[in-house]
């Protein structure tokens, strides 16, 4: 569906995208993760033919998104993170307009979505709140008959109830065999929805794979109450940050080395055990941790 290799895009002296790779296969919901300014929106704009790439290879449905933009766009729907509506068009009019421009709306789905998202289609664009503007674009996208959804932080401004409606809608869309590229920095949303994830940073992809694969790359945290003091935990490969307080132990372990740790704990006699699988947040922080120290750099959006 989407194939990007070595994509470079510069704005003046700023290198917003610096050799980015991204692949999205038919039928998957692909999470596109990164903090503000990492280049997510720029990538999507190149993918939509709004921006011209400087270097690299970009294929959308096997075509060139810059040259064949309009033809390819008939098969996709796009929802930006910050929806700007025409102040004097109503939400209903915008939904119809975008749907028609994409090549037609599913009338039943349009009515159903209006109800589920609880949107009043007779209000003018200027009087919608941010969340409601977002709903207008989401309904227009979901009611269109397309193969691919490109969503750029689509839930910003939605309340939790509407977020859950959004998740249901994405599940339904996927169950019909369609594809979604979901750019986000809301990790819970990505964890809940996505089959595969790409993490980008400073305009390049630093990690890509299924959530399970990515988890493999990180550590599980283990806390245990033991019958006797454990021996030799420090020496095991892949074990970090061991804290022993009498018979209570806390440690971090590479997910690949879990077996050895469990064996060692069993020898000491386990009274209680909790283990915390790595969250996407850990993954994310591992790649962006140094940003917090102020050493990270910011690309253009």
């Amino acid at each position: 569906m989407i194939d990007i290799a070595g994509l470079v895009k510069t704005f003046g002296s700023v290198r917003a995208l610096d050799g980015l790779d991204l692949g999205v296969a038919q039928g998957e919901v692909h999470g596109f993760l990164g903090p503000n300014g990492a280049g997510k929106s720029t990538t999507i704009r190149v993918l939509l033919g709004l921006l011209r790439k400087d270097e690299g290879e970009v294929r959308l449905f096997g075509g060139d998104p810059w040259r064949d933009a309009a033809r390819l766009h008939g098969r996709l729907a796009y929802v930006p993170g910050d929806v700007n509506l025409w102040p004097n068009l109503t939400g209903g009019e915008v939904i119809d307009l975008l749907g028609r421009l994409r090549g037609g709306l599913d009338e039943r789905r349009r009515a159903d979505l209006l109800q589920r998202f609880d949107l009043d289609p007779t209000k003018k664009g200027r009087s919608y709140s941010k969340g409601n503007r977002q709903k207008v674009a989401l309904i227009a996208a979901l009611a269109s008959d397309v193969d691919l959804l490109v969503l750029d932080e689509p839930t910003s401004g939605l309340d939790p109830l509407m977020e859950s409606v959004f998740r249901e809608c994405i599940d339904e869309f996927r169950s019909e065999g369609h594809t979604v590229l979901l750019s986000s920095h809301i990790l819970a949303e990505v964890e809940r929805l996505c089959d595969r994830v790409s993490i980008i940073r400073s305009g390049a992809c630093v990690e890509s794979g299924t959530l399970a694969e990515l988890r493999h790359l990180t550590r599980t945290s283990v806390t245990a109450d033991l019958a006797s003091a454990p021996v030799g935990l420090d020496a095991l490969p892949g074990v970090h940050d061991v804290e022993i307080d009498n018979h209570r132990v806390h440690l971090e372990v590479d997910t690949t080395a879990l077996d050895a740790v469990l064996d060692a704990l069993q020898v000491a006699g386990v009274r209680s055990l909790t283990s915390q699988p790595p969250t996407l947040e850990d993954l994310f922080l591992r790649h962006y941790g140094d940003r917090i120290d102020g050493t990270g750099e910011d690309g253009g959006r």
Partner: protein
Amino acid sequence: MTGTLVLLRAFLRRDRWMYLWWPVGIAILYVSQGWSVDGLYATQAEFDKAAAGMENNAALIAMAGPARALNTTGGQVTWQSAAFGAILVGLMSMFIVGRHTRAEEETGRDELLRAAPVGRHAAMTAAVLDAVLANLVVGALTGASLVAYGLAPADSIGLAAGLTLCGWFFTGTAVVAAQLTTSTRAAYGIAGAVIGLSYALRALGDISAPALSWMSPIGWYQAMHAFSGLRWWPGLLLLAGAGVTVAVGYAVFDRRDFGSGVLPARPGPARASRSLGTGLGLAWRLQRAALAGWAVGLLLGGLGFGTMGDDVGDLVGDSQTSRDLVLQGGGDIVDGFYATLILMLAMLAAGFAISSALRPHGEEDAGRVEVLLATALPRSAWLAGHDAVTVAGTLMVLVLAGAGLGTSYALVTGDGSAVARMTVELLMTAPAVLVLAGFARLLHGLLPRATLLAWLALLLSYVVLIFGELLDLPQWFQDLSPFEHLALVPVEDFRWTPFLGLAAVAAALSVAGQIAFRRRDVH
């Protein structure tokens, strides 16, 4: 009232450019009338003759106001400026009040303020004070300019003070309007309609039923009779009216909820009409309101200009300067005058053409284009839709301007054939107008940050038209204006070569703009 002064200071800072341009512009409007009158007529006899002609011209009276002391500079300044000055202070007051009250409430910024420890009325009071001050500045600058120009001080001050009072009156109506609707645009619509109605009432009153003029604040202002037996008491009507309307505004404000208006927000259609589904349909929908405004404006402009009929000789006077200023070409004075008028109307139409050609730029700036171009709508079709509206709209406003000019000319002179003739004459300027629109399109495609240059091109054309001969500007500079290349109809015979040449240039610029846009990033 806590916080009023802090807010007022913040408002004044936001409005600092308004405080420069409105007073300067309005003062220039007043003083330039004196300057042009004094330049126009070489002798008092000439002046008397022109004044006698104007006094009997009902159309001019409807446009400007009651004819009093028209053979004096002060009388002319009052007559020609007062009604328009009143409209301008009305608009200024409306924008100042609107942007700090309803606009803030609509965008939700006001909510932040109201949650802060400021009084409920602080923002509204600060906005009213802001407008009151601005009108004082307008009055002070206008009065000082008139006195400095050498007009009688008492009457100059009376004329300027009346202007300030008018501004205060319209401040009050704007405050009320801001309470009525939830959208700023609708509030401006209501406040603007009050100003328009005031102008229309006095126009009708001045030509036929004086009682109607007394129902209009602009009529009250003109009833102060500056430079023809100044009296102050009609000004008290304005002051009282301002007090009453502001008080009504506060009363309504206290009785309504935050974010709401007295008039309910009207819901729009839940479904799009059949036509809203293509680039052209969208462009039409987005531009039709502005087009209607320009169309009405140009029709009225044409009607106004045509009221001068054939009395042009008297109006213009005999001095060479004034002839250079208002006449094009050497021939007959009436023809020369109308050749100028036609080009001036064409340049007004160019105002529509340029703003319409820059509409895609505005859309892009507002971030509404990405979603559109991410649909199957090709870039070229999106832009072509707007282009089509620009071209068709330009032809339409030109036809209306010409029809207006011809109609009132025909009514004044009895020459019925003028309607069709002048309509065609204006239509024939279309290529020059469209060259400016094409230039705007090229800028949007190539240098989207420099679109202001499109307006500079229109300003240049205007300067060349008005001052080209007077200042003896070099020919190459005059040739930069597309209007200079057109045959000066009706002084000269129409020529096809420049018409077709300009049309080709307009088309080329437009196509180049399309190509440039298709090749660049969209933001």
